[in-house]
């Protein structure tokens, strides 16, 4: 929108008190967050924390109850069409059409994304190569392994060369090898295309490997924000892992801050016992 124009090149995604309620229940509660261009940002948090709800709002699928966000300077509430041209989304569910081949899936989305006809073939060939699916291009997606489907989905999301990619639990249900190949795909997107990626995950190892920064959500709020290293250090215990960070900020806790020391106290004694 008009006035907020130029500073968005650094912060490509900005959440401004983004809020979503379902009836009396607040799934996402006044989240204030900036994500920089070219970063892999992880949204972590226990089941029901509100991660998918944030992503649905940012991808224009769900209108916020209050607050808003901008992506590449476009407002998700007032300029959803503009936002959609800049983003791609791979849902938590496996979402390539199993009744079609990889090639047919790619053709369909090339048209839906408005990829000009003269570059369509080249782009589809590139996408197949990127996904390592050249051999399987003419096979029905229904017969693919989980890893192949995910690789295809990420390739599908690149056809219109979005600036921001949203990945909701990209490696859930994949074996370690398939997971590794998805990680490599994601890292290439950032390294070679300068894309910005916002992902959610329940694998702390994944967040630790991929993410430049993470936010830990609980009950609709951001409880901790920083690089994995910063967050581990902030616990004040030696050899803390991101799992410890996750546990620390995901625990049910009264709003009082006095609790903080209690918890790290008890954790320390646990460490000593072990």
């Amino acid at each position, binding site marked *: 929108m008009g006035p907020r124009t130029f500073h968005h090149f650094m912060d490509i995604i900005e959440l401004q008190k983004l809020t979503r309620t379902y009836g009396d229940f607040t799934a996402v509660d006044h989240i204030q967050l900036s994500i920089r261009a070219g970063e892999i940002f992880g949204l972590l948090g226990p089941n029901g924390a509100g991660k998918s709800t944030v992503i*649905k709002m940012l*991808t*224009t*699928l*769900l209108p916020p109850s209050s607050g808003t966000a901008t992506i590449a300077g476009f407002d998700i509430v007032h300029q959803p*069409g*503009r936002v*959609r*041209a800049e*983003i*791609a*989304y*791979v*849902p*938590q*569910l*496996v*979402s390539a*059409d*199993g*009744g*079609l081949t990889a090639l*047919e899936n790619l*053709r*369909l*989305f090339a*048209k*839906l*994304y*408005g*990829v*000009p006809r003269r*570059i369509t073939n*080249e*782009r589809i*060939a*590139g*996408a197949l*190569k*990127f996904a390592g699916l050249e051999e399987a291009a003419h096979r029905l997606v229904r017969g693919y392994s989980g890893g192949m489907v995910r690789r295809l989905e990420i390739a*599908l999301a*690149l056809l*219109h*060369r979005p600036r921001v990619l949203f990945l909701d639990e990209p490696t859930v249900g994949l074996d370690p090898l398939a997971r590794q190949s998805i990680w490599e795909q994601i890292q*290439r*997107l950032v390294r*070679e*295309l*300068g894309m910005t990626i916002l992902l959610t995950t329940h694998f702390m190892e994944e967040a630790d490997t991929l993410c430049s920064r993470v936010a830990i959500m609980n009950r609709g709020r951001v409880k901790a924000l920083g690089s994995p290293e910063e967050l581990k250090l902030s616990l004040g215990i030696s050899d803390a892992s991101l799992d410890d960070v996750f546990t620390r900020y995901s625990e049910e806790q009264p709003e009082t801050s006095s609790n903080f020391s209690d918890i790290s106290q008890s954790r320390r004694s646990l460490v000593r016992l072990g």
Partner: protein
Amino acid sequence: MKSLNNATLLEWAEPFAVPAGRFTGLTRLAGQCMALVETEYIKLRRDPTDLISRAVQPALWLLIFGNVFSKLRAVATGDLPYTDFMAPGILAQSVLFVSIFYGIAVIWERDLGIVHKLLVSPTPRLVLVLGKALSAGLRALIQGVFVYLLAWLLGVHLNFHLPALLGAALVVLLGAMGFSTFSLIIACIVKSRERFMGIGQVLTMPLFFASNAIYPIAVMPEWLKVVAHANPLSYEVDALRALMVHGGSSLFGVGWDISVLLAFVSVLTLISARLYANLVR
């Protein structure tokens, strides 16, 4: 962007110029719409079992119901043999049955996350729902060919003049678009397969029986006449009766029938474009 280089990725994934202001041209919209229809076509060609199993029902109606009622002479259809009277009704019925369960397929796609991806693409909602409606239209047209074939085998006096055939195709297309969109709207409201099945079943039969498909409106009790006049299926059948069989005639006039169907399709399409995103909320 070139400066990032060394990458196989960049060669194909460079940004492309989207027309200024992104006032997407009509050709692009048409392309998006046809891409959805083409997808339906690919799937139908790959797996026609669904089409074939759906051809069984109209066959049974024409064979059994048609035969018995002709013998009974229970329905006053003027000079028209009863099977000739009934064939357009059965065509409309099979279009209705094909279309009214379209919402199930859409809920299925939602469960798979396909709807999410369609909605996040820059394709306008209106184009997405139109593409769905036209896909249902494609199915219905294929179904229509089956019904014509069956009717012909059973000795129905079909009208094979090109304008009549084209007119019938248009009516079938509009009927399918209307009822599939109606089905889509229900899917967007109930959102779950189980509830949809319930409602689908509850709706189809009344729509069918409260129409002129297998008996004329003239023989209905007053209250049913009112319902039949408000039922878009009646207008579909009415037009088909004039277009499909020799000696058949329309009560309301084919022009009026088509206008009603067009209005039905337009209004529902606009409503469904607004509701489509509800599926993923």
